[in-house]
């Protein structure tokens, strides 16, 4: 019963969301609720605003020339709902709490270890001061969560760009996990992975949803059926499907 209540709690409430790049409208009049501790898939044809939808939830869109979003995006970070789309919102804080993994693996120009430790270095000074052991422990834990530890534990100082595409993608997942965000956004995270790695990432997402809310853009219907609790379908700028 407790689990049931926990699952039914709403984590994200979107009301009348409109998104555009310049004069080109991408999303129109989107309103929906996303429950906590679920995997929500976002599907639809290419170019229908799936990635833009994720950028709204991470408040990343102000970094893109001409992008504009209006409407309410209320997220419960544990102390009541907060409209992250309001002007004056603390963007760095929001982005630390809403982790994001992009479609193409994008390791930073650093070593494997530094890549995963990087978000910890961005924390405000008061929270950044952690011992070397604690830092190592957090990085190792994130790499283990992303099923990458065994493959890189002996070469943490190697350039992250030397990893294979699949390893790089899991590195990006580890990097998003190291801050333990309450919400995880994934934009086709398995598109460059082999079958075994896809299975591992899916298992990881099922494990992570116990304490995170996951929103997954995916083109793979089978994958959506396997792991998603609810699905959103975007087409012609609108939300045309929403359900379990």
């Amino acid at each position, binding site marked *: 019963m407790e689990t049931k209540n926990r699952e039914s709690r709403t984590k994200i409430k979107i009301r009348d969301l409109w998104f555009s790049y310049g004069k080109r409208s991408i999303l129109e009049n989107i309103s929906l609720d996303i429950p906590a501790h679920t995997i929500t898939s976002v599907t639809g044809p290419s170019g229908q605003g799936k990635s833009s939808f994720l950028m709204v939830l*991470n408040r*990343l869109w102000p*970094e*893109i020339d001409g992008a504009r979003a209006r409407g309410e995006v209320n997220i419960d970070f544990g102390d009541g709902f907060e409209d992250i789309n309001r002007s004056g919102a603390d*963007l*760095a*804080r929001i*982005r*630390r709490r809403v*982790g*994001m993994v*992009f479609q*193409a693996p*994008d390791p*930073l*120009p*650093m*070593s494997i*270890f*530094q890549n995963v430790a*990087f*978000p910890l*270095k*961005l*924390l405000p000074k008061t929270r950044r001061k952690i011992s070397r052991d604690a830092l190592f422990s957090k990085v190792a834990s994130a790499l283990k969560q992303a099923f990458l530890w065994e493959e890189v534990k002996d070469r943490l*100082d*190697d*350039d992250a760009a030397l990893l294979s595409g699949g390893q790089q993608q899991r590195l990006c997942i580890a*990097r*998003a996990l190291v*801050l333990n965000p309450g919400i995880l956004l994934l934009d086709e995270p398995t598109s460059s992975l082999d079958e075994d790695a896809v299975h591992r990432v899916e298992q990881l997402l099922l494990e992570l949803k116990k304490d995170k809310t996951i929103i997954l853009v995916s083109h793979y219907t089978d994958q959506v059926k396997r792991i998603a609790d609810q699905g959103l379908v975007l087409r012609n700028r609108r939300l045309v499907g929403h359900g379990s």
Partner: protein
Amino acid sequence: MSDIRDRVMAVYCTGAALVLVTGLFTIIGFLVIRGYGVLDATLVFGDVPVVDALLLKRQVFNGLFPAITGTLALIILAMGLALPLGLASGIYLAEYAGRRTKWIFSLMVDILAGIPSIVVGLFGFSITVFLHNVFPGRIFPCLMISGVALAFLVLPYIIKTTQAALEAIPGATRLTALSLGASGLENLVYVLIPTCLSDIVAGVVLAIGRCAEDTAVIMLTGVVATAGVPTSLFAGFQALPFYIYYTASEYAGPSELNSAYGAALILLGICTGLFVLAHWIRLRVGRRMGIPG
């Protein structure tokens, strides 16, 4: 048909690269053959003991030591002035400037890049004359004015390479750190600059080379044949490229001409040393930022 075109293209490109490499080795080989024989302590320090010359206890009148120190001082001064300005301007154009400002500023930088060095020298000379009139008897052609003029000459290289290197970074890479909570400045320092550091250093190396070899600018703004080791920013100075030019045009015998080849070899060595230093700094900076070599 396309196969033949591919082959022709490959042969043409390989041939061009070979011509370049052959030309480079021919020049270096020629310099080594002509200059290696005269490369010794006498060429650099004349008849002054090395320690005395290095400690500036005695002036070197018949060696290259003053020209070497003058060249090094000039490069350090010009790069010291041009680097912060050039890097900051390049970053401004790539990251902060609006479309119209960028267009106007880029046009100005392109025009600046196209100005012949002799014209920059004349500009430096005009400044010297102006300052001489404002401060009679106190300002003459000197190291400082040459350094400023040379900095002016190499600024476009640094600005354009920095701007181009930053603008070539893919959009996804720009968003990665921001999506993790980095500020614009953190993104610039930790991700964007390290990503294109090699390209920026390539521009810096090009600028160092230009500072080391340019003769037209310094001839009009401060270099003299017998100034000795520069002791002040407002003193005249000697420089290797001017020595080479002067000796090659007015040599009295083969041994004097060969000393110009020796000077050219030393100049080549200084440039190579500075290039190595620039790449070493890139590696050090990269390591401090967590970028493996």
